[in-house]
């Protein structure tokens, strides 16, 4: 079985790349140790010299992109099932769009958080750690953390809702009474995405009360116009 797995072209490529990567790291590490240059490996230098803007923007990017990946994955799984099941049982088409909407909500959480986090990003003056100040470093790392939090939560939430929705569509095609029960499972799945949003808001809100105000405004907007 291992041989079969190895024969897969992808596996060869991935193992090759991983081996090269770790070999480089190992050899560089050994050389640094031999020549007593270990002091050059300085994580603190990396964290203080890299710009907080990089971290903030990575957070914003990851927030939206990972959420969209989750939503897309979910929609693709559910959508294929609905369309496939709808061939023989056309009545399932309309009802099961609710599953698609649950997946879409995950993407909406992502974009809301990306906008909220990006609104918190401001210019700062300063080139040295002292002049940049702890607040700006904290802001950069908070935004990165918030983006990562909401991104990964929504990614797995979207996948979860998608697979459950796919099961719901196929079960509904067999037996119409099953749909409502499975919908409850889907709601639980959707809640975990919301957890991610809440925690991300908490992380970002340390950067000012502005975050809460924006979030409320936007949520109000969404609820009203849905």
């Amino acid at each position, binding site marked *: 079985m291992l041989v079969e797995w190895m024969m897969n072209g992808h596996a060869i490529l991935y193992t090759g790349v991983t081996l090269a990567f770790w070999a480089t790291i190992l050899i560089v590490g050994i050389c640094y140790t031999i020549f007593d240059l270990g*002091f050059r490996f300085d994580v603190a230098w990396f964290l203080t010299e890299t710009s907080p803007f990089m971290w903030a923007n990575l957070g914003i990017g990851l927030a939206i992109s990972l959420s969209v990946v989750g939503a897309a994955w979910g929609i693709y799984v559910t959508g294929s099932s609905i369309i496939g099941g709808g061939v023989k049982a056309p009545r399932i088409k309309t009802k099961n769009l609710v599953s698609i909407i649950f997946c879409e909500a995950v993407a909406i959480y992502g974009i809301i958080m990306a906008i909220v986090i990006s609104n918190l990003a401001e210019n700062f003056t300063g080139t040295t750690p002292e002049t940049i100040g702890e607040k700006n470093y904290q802001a950069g790392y908070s935004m990165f953390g918030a983006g990562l939090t909401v991104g990964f939560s929504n990614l797995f939430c979207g996948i979860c809702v998608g697979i459950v929705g796919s099961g719901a569509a196929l079960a509904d095609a067999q037996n119409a009474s099953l749909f409502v029960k499975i919908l409850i499972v889907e709601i639980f799945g959707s809640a975990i995405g919301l957890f991610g949003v809440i925690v991300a808001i908490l992380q970002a809100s340390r950067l000012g009360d502005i975050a809460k105000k924006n979030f409320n405004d936007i949520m109000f907007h969404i609820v009203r116009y849905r």
Partner: protein
Amino acid sequence: MAALRTVSGNTGMISLFLLCVIAAAKSDEQVPLVAWASDGFALSPVNAPSAGHTVSVEELESHLNTALRTAPLSVDDFTLYGGVFGNKQDSVFQNLEAALLSSSSLWLPSVSSSATALVSTLLQNQIDAAPLYMNPDTLAQLRLNASVAALLVFRLPYSGGADMMSTKEVLSGNDEVIGQVLSIMKAQSVPYTAVFTALWPSRVIEEASPAVHSVWSRSLLQSRREEPTATNPPLEFKEKGSTCILLWAEKLVVSQYRSGKWERHDLAPKTFGEGVEPNLSGSSCNETHSRLVLNYEDVLNYRSFKLIFVMNRRHYKVSARHWFTMDLVHLEYDGKTATFNGSRYIYAPAEYSYRCESVSSSRYPQLSPHSDKDNANDWQISLHDFQIQGFNVAGKDFSYASDCASFFTPGIWMGLVTSLLMVLVLTYGLHMIMQLRTMDRFDDPKGPAISVPQTE
């Protein structure tokens, strides 16, 4: 020269002579010189100098008829502003070009600036006339007599700080004045010969020092190594007979901001070199604290001047080794002190020396003023090819030099991190797409085709 006298005798040439204001130039700088004559007059034919040849005083004398001088001028100015790249309309030398095209001309791209300084004297001798200093307004009022040779000098306007007017505007203004003068001369139908040059160049191209590998120009290796300059040994401070602090720098430049500009002074010649013994009194070193005091006299008009490097050696728990930092750099001048912090960037393990190509308080600053109100805000320090060791000195050589340049700069690291993230995303996405397969579970090539009812 004989030809010149004949010419002046015959046609009663009137010379125009423009001179610019200000100072003496270093004798090894070059300025360009261009000369032309009005209609009906030809410059005596002369061999153009070969490229790269600098015309000396004697050669200039032999080349010369009259001279027009102006604000500092360089060959590069003609190239930059003369519209030579096809953009004729941008040329600031419109009048000059018109004059040169309409008559014979002489172009000497590289004349020794000491020669141009003597042009007026040379012309005086040749024409036997005292120079008249004029500007275009007074020229319009003057009645020129075509039968008598005269020497007219025009100082072309040049504003005193180069930052007030750009070179292009200055040259454009000069060209206008030239145009006015030439048109007046033409209106009065006076034959003339004109010379346009400068006392010193507007930009100096530094000669590559033969000992240094020049990256800007190529030359034969042999020509570079004419006199190999030996590097000076590092400065040593000995306490109780054994060397305790080592210092080396190629340049130790201190600058103070006084009355609107920076005044610089390089302390390296007084610190390093054969037979140079700088005064190190006040220096001390022990296990944890090193202090190197360099005492100078008469620097930037200060009677006593001190440059002090303060280094400390401490044990740091997290890395479990001793590091030394250059905490402060003091400048003491006549009792006042300017202090710079340096501990953020200038550090190395205590066993090694610290070396940096450029330690300065201005460009990519490694030294910053101790506080907002410190005197250091009026000073700039710039140390080139700087190496220092305050602890663990064995003998007169430096230990391993921990360089300030890291393998990757922070920018490179940021790029690598972001690129790595994107490559991971791309890999994951590619993997997903490549393993999509159409479902073939219910394929039954022998069975009937699926029928999709048209109506529900």
